[in-house]
């Protein structure tokens, strides 16, 4: 919808001595909000994104290097975390980094009567009883990352997860289309 996030990826580049890791690449994520300085919420999201990306990027192929991902929030109209996840994945794709699988972010909002809304707007998020965000991977539709806001029952979570896995197919199709469009020009 109206949420937009700009992702910039730099790497693999040289890294300073202390951060260097002989096992593989060191991933760094910086998330900049639209207004204000990054706060604790941003740090927590950065950690989520970093761990998700670390799981897919084949760091072992580029030891002692750093990969930096910078995300700038241009506008927030709901489902911000999923938008960041999708932007990060497309950035990784565009940079040509070796990945074990793709991932996509899906947000579900649970309404008061148990109705599931995928990709909610800011208004729907506020009115929802619970908002769940999942990062689903492309190979086996397994859950890479999960966060919830608000409480829900276990069955509702499973339903949201199933809905998110189905929605992941549409998003992966979109990835394929955009990449095809870019390289066919």
């Amino acid at each position, binding site marked *: 919808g109206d949420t937009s996030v700009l992702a910039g990826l730099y790497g693999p580049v040289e890294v300073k001595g202390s951060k260097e890791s002989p096992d593989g690449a060191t991933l760094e994520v910086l998330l900049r909000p639209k207004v204000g300085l990054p706060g*604790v919420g941003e740090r*927590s999201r950065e*950690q989520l994104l970093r761990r998700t*990306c670390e*799981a897919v990027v084949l760091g072992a192929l580029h030891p002692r290097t750093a990969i930096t991902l910078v995300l700038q929030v241009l506008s927030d109209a709901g489902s911000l975390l999923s938008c960041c996840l999708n932007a990060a994945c497309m950035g990784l794709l565009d940079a040509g980094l070796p990945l074990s699988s793709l991932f996509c972010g899906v947000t579900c909002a649970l309404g008061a009567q148990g109705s599931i809304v995928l990709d909610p707007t800011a208004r729907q998020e506020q009115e929802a009883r619970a908002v769940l965000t999942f990062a689903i991977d492309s190979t086996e539709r397994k859950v890479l990352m999960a966060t919830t806001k608000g*409480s829900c029952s276990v069955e509702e979570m499973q339903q949201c997860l199933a809905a998110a896995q189905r929605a992941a197919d549409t998003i992966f199709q979109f990835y394929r289309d955009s990449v095809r469009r870019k390289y066919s020009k």
Partner: protein
Amino acid sequence: FRTVEPLEYYRRFLKENCRPDGRELGEFRATTVNIGSITTADGSALVKLGNTTVICGVKAELAAPAVDSANKGYIVPNVELPSLCSTKFRSGPPGEEAQAASQFIADVIENSQIIAKEDLCIASGKLAWVLYCDIICLDYDGNILDASAFALLAALKNVQLPSVTINEETGLSEVNLKQKNPLVIRKHPVATSFAIFDDTLLIVDPTAEEEDLATGTVTVVTDEEDRLCSVHKPGGSPLTGAKLQDCITRAITRHKEVKKLIDKVIRSIKP
């Protein structure tokens, strides 16, 4: 062998379905809790999960409520991982782990509605309580999120708020320290953490060594009605829905044990 090739050392144990410290894969470390240890704080609790030691102190102060929510007070959690608890942390501004943990605790408080913010209001639009919850880790041996959540819950149960009246003529507040009321705790959220190894194995309550070797972690917070307050899985190896369900069932069992422990301790301090 353990220092040279820690992962292989661990794998050998995992093949036999146990861990170097003698625990089963699904067994928690010994949990002890000590309530009311800090006399200068309004509420406090010390929790030990094996070697991981976390202390939580709650201080209550008065403030004017925000303009858009005039009848709500504030709860401000802050998790600190000082350099004394582990060589991993340096002194200076809070690192990423401390900030992520603070955000996690704030989310748990918000999601589980452990305290209704309306309860913290004294006079709508004029005066409300602010609860500063400082959670400090004294010894870091893994599973900091579980210990912090538990310490927070125990400390909040221990908090006694003095009654406050507003003097009609002067408009000032008068705090009556002699008359104290305990806080109304609505829900009891309990966090359970798991570490994922090699995309398949799930172990409960990881130590610091296990956390370093793990390929991912999951934390599930449940409350007494078996509802999920939070599922926190920051990246790491992918999990199928069935595995996640397994984690949730174990978290629910753990919740019952922890609740019994807390109730026992609360009952023992009441005269």
